[in-house]
């Protein structure tokens, strides 16, 4: 067997450590490259983006300090276009694995996952004070539960005064009935935002906001093409910063920042690394990507929500701008949480192939065990196109040394997992 040929179903596990499985494929790659120096701090515009992306609350506080109304967002189904049209700054929140889930006692019986628990703890701790409003969406089941918990705590008088909490229920089955339902919910959100703004917003304001958000999506597509270029200019960690910042920064400020970054991109040196595509659980923070890239791999794309999904589909600029928003946010590429299994497998395979990935790294955090139901189809689909699949299961926020070791093992081509 070639040292580049990975054994089927090599499985390794030890208590409290990640579980990894390398699925048989014919993947080969060149000699292992030097690991990317991920210890290098961000600089310039990337530094600005990283600060926003990985510390959205800090960024929100800055906006609040400038007297701008800020709407915190949990989930990916909330149309930033409408928040912008209402004259507010949408800030997509990320969970922080450093937050103590026991800060307010044992909340495990709420049956929230660690991501939702982290948001809850931070809210109860007053960390969301800088937000005027909070909108939770339903793209992940645990976030709907989070809303139920917040509503009940509010009823019991146990929530901080700020921010006020709302919920947006967008559904995703591909039917006309679901689209009609979503249209109702988007209309309700528009009305709510007008109430918050204290005045109705016009069609042209929504059109303008949509055009601005779409312009940023186009910039991200350009960014992505540089990331998947034969000589990639950006690492996966860079990309988490750049993509995430689009969901946090003021849209105009982001446009200017990203435009500058792209203008200078030709001067950046190419990055070596075994190209891998990240699939599965969302990267709420950069630790896992850092581990993967420290091991000599280069994350050139991802199918989770902090990746291609967030920008690859433009919001259609329809006569009634709300119709386009419904189409984009109700449809779009299948998410890990709600996407149909077959569609997810096809999407992952297409994206991985498009990015030139030599392997797909499927990472499931323990709380995302339900996503494991998609893996069987992904294995079949990737095997058909001869892309190796490396499966890793690990607790979110756990030490990453073991993951780094597993990826290094793959990169160095031994075919075996420790």
């Amino acid at each position, binding site marked *: 067997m070639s040292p580049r040929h990975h054994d089927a179903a090599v499985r390794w596990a030890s208590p409290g450590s990640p579980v990894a499985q390398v699925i048989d494929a014919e993947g080969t790659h060149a000699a292992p490259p030097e690991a990317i120096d991920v210890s290098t701090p961000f600089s310039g515009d990337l530094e600005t983006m990283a600060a926003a992306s990985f510390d959205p609350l800090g960024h929100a506080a800055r906006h609040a300090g400038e007297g701008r109304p800020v709407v915190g967002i949990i989930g990916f189904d909330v149309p930033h276009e409408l928040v912008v049209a209402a004259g507010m700054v949408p800030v997509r929140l990320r969970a922080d694995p450093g937050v103590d889930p026991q800060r307010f006692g044992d909340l495990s019986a709420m049956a929230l996952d660690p991501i939702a628990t982290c948001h809850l703890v931070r809210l109860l701790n007053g960390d969301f004070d800088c937000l005027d409003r909070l909108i939770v969406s339903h793209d992940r089941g645990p976030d709907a539960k989070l809303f139920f918990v917040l509503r009940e705590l509010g009823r019991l008088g146990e929530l901080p005064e700020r921010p006020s909490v*709302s919920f947006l229920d967008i*559904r995703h089955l591909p039917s006309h009935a679901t689209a009609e339902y979503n249209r109702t919910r988007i209309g309700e959100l528009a009305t709510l935002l007008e109430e918050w703004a204290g005045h109705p917003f016009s069609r042209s304001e929504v059109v303008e906001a949509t055009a601005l958000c779409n312009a940023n999506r186009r910039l991200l597509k350009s960014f992505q093409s540089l990331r998947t270029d034969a000589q990639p200019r950006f690492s996966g960690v860079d990309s988490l910063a750049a993509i995430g910042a689009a969901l946090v920064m003021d849209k105009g400020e982001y446009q200017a920042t990203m435009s500058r970054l792209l203008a200078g991109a030709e001067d950046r040196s190419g990055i070596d690394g075994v190209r891998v595509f990240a699939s599965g659980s969302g990267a709420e923070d950069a630790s896992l990507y850092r581990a993967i890239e420290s091991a000599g791999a280069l994350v050139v794309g991802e199918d989770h929500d902090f990746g291609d999904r967030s920008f690859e589909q433009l919001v259609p600029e329809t006569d009634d701008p709300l119709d386009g928003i419904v189409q984009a946010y109700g449809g779009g590429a299948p998410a890990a949480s709600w996407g149909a299994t077959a569609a997810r497998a096809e999407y992952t395979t297409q994206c991985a192939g498009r990015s030139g990935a030599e392997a797909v790294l499927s990472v499931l955090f323990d709380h995302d065990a339900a996503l*494991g139901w998609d893996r069987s189809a992904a294995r079949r689909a990737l095997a058909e196109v001869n892309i190796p699949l490396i499966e890793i299961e690990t607790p979110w926020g756990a030490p990453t040394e073991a993951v780094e070791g597993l990826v290094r093992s793959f990169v160095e081509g031994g075919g075996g997992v420790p």
Partner: protein
Amino acid sequence: MSTSGIRSVKGLDVTSAFNAHQRQWFAELSERSVGGEPIAIVNADAPHEIFRAMDIPYVVVQWWSSVISAKQQAAGCLEALRGAGYPDNNEQYNALGLGEALSMRRGGAGPWGGLPQPSILSGIVTTDGSSKVLQAWSHETGAPCFLFESTVDGRHSIETEWWDSLPWEWGRLVEPARLDLMVAELKELIGLLERTFDRQFSMTRLEEVMALANEQLEYYRKTRDLVATTVPAPVSVVDTMPATMVPQWHRGSVWGRDAAKALFEEVQARADAGTAACPGEQIRLMWLGRGLWASMGLYQYFEREYGAVFVWSMYLALAADGYLRYGEDPLRTLAARFVPLIEVLRMPTWSSSWHAKEATLHQIDGAISLGEEDYFSVRRLESQGVPVLRINANNVDQSTWSEQALITQISQFIEERVRPAAERRRGGWT
């Protein structure tokens, strides 16, 4: 780990009769399947009434899981899932049937001859994983899968005491947009069934099914009230769980209605005669969570040891309070039954107030909660003097619990926390 399974002793004649009927019904269903008739496999939260009205026999996934578990075959089914590359560590209650299908493909034998090959699968997308299980099942069997959206009421303020008004005033309690969506989905399902299985939908027939279902559910309400207010309890969950669950999945049929009536009449006769599930009843317990099907006798262990009777489970209580719906438009009324159903059990604003109300009604001294999302229920119950023992386990996955460990935990809980509460309750009456 234990897989021994303490067997229970049923007290009601109807429980045995229902189980016998169920075996006969299942055998006939299997024959119909072999004869080419379509068979649906549906989740408990799917609107079964459509299938009944269109004379498409259906098997409820979670009931079948209870059978697999009671026959001590759950571990084998989980192993089959794992062997086929599917998870064995989540959605177990929804996936045992798929595991059985995979196991039978490799020569395994399911209980009662095994689940027939499905012609269609259906359920509501209640969790991120639940729809993926059905999709995997669809992939493995080739049966189409019809999914219903799971929607959320996003209003800031909702009523907490829903149980008396929901049957009649669902138009006020449930948002119209959610009902509109499910009505549209019901129409889609009807069209799919008509096209696929050459059946004709009749609104008149659905009205009959809905009326029979409400009659059946009214009997459950009467039975629940009787159990709650009779001390000592005439019957325990060892009987009410199966004697409710089995006919519940025949909801809307004449047999289902008559079975609920027979259950009520037998419980009434026992109450009138002063016949108790546990003649020396000292303590009344509540079981929060799914049934421990592989070890039903465990519930009775505490009757013998402590005079502690499990008088409450969600099976009878949900049948009494969760399903009843009256309305002029059968499709919209049916939607009103299923749109909020899971919220009764899992949305804390509703479930915690309901558990508190039920505990008071049933004169509960202590609650055991297994694998439930019960944070707010625990707070409510504890605040009204009902101690709660939380057990983090999955009812059909015996790698997460053992009988001996449960006996030890629950015994200690009864001795230290429940018995004093029961003594206070009984003392208060004298």
